[in-house]
């Protein structure tokens, strides 16, 4: 993966496959503590302890179309490469939470990348799944909840091109405002 936004897009696919209806994506920047924390949580089917133990193995997957499952392994490897850490918690029937802590100023930390693009793909491609996205930096905090957006839109679909363009600008402006780092 070239950047962290791609990792996030990838990990969220796991939640979508676990039939989640509400997915939380949180990015916290703590430059003073040299930490960048990414948390992805969902209310999907969750995993039993046995599955959870195997989830981060590169040769474990619940798919039948191929035999490898690299998403979590790559994410974990990248976090650990930056003197960070990685953890995953899950409970059957409740959901799963993935946390990756990156060394923020570490040379090997991938850049954040195009987070707006990732969010647009996720938000606009499903009518059943809602997202709560939070990004916290020392300059401020931005939160967007797609349930509020849907409520405002009433019967206009969230995938409508004009709505998509609006969301793109809204996300860009807000993330600029809180001065997110690269």
């Amino acid at each position, binding site marked *: 993966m070239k950047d962290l936004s*791609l990792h996030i897009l990838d990990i969220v*696919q796991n939640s979508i496959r676990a039939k989640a209806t509400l997915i939380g994506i949180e990015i916290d920047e703590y430059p003073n503590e040299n930490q960048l924390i990414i948390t992805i949580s969902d209310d999907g089917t969750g995993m039993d302890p046995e599955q959870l133990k195997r989830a981060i193995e590169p040769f474990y997957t619940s798919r039948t179309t*191929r035999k490898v499952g690299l998403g979590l392994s790559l994410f974990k490897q990248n976090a650990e490469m930056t003197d960070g850490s990685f953890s995953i918690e899950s409970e059957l029937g409740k959901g799963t939470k993935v946390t990756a802590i990156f060394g923020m100023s570490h040379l090997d930390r991938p850049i954040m990348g195009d987070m707006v693009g990732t969010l647009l*793909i996720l938000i606009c491609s499903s009518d059943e799944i809602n997202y709560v996205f939070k990004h916290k930096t020392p300059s401020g905090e931005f939160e967007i909840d797609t349930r509020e957006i849907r409520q405002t839109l009433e019967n206009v679909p969230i995938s*409508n*091109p*004009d*709505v998509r363009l609006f969301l793109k600008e809204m996300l860009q*402006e807000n993330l600029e*405002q809180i001065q997110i780092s690269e």
Partner: protein
Amino acid sequence: MNKIKSLADLKKLQSEVQSKIKLREKGDSPEQLVQIKVSMATCGIASGAKETMNFLIEELDHQGIDVIVTQTGCMGYCYAEPTIELTIPGKAPVVYGFVNKNKAQEIIDKHIKLNEMVDGIIPVAYSTIDNK
């Protein structure tokens, strides 16, 4: 500096868009529209499926072609990512491999607009991802 867009601005947009939608309501049921599914698993994302998908959405919107673009899981053609599945109404779905921006443009110009297939189709006895 412009004021940052808020939910109140979205509300304004909502009423504008709603009136537009009403005008073209008929004949827009999903089955009658061209559908594109972009394979968006680890393999696809690592090969650039995100750029492909954003390009498809923006280019189709730019040209004013009504197509449903969604994401799907890995179809098992990891070697050929990014892959897309294109369904023209009333026809069997077709899977294209190695779809970068140039390929996507070619597919829009030839397959979607003129109904001529282009190079790059993954030829298999194919059943949709839902049946796997």
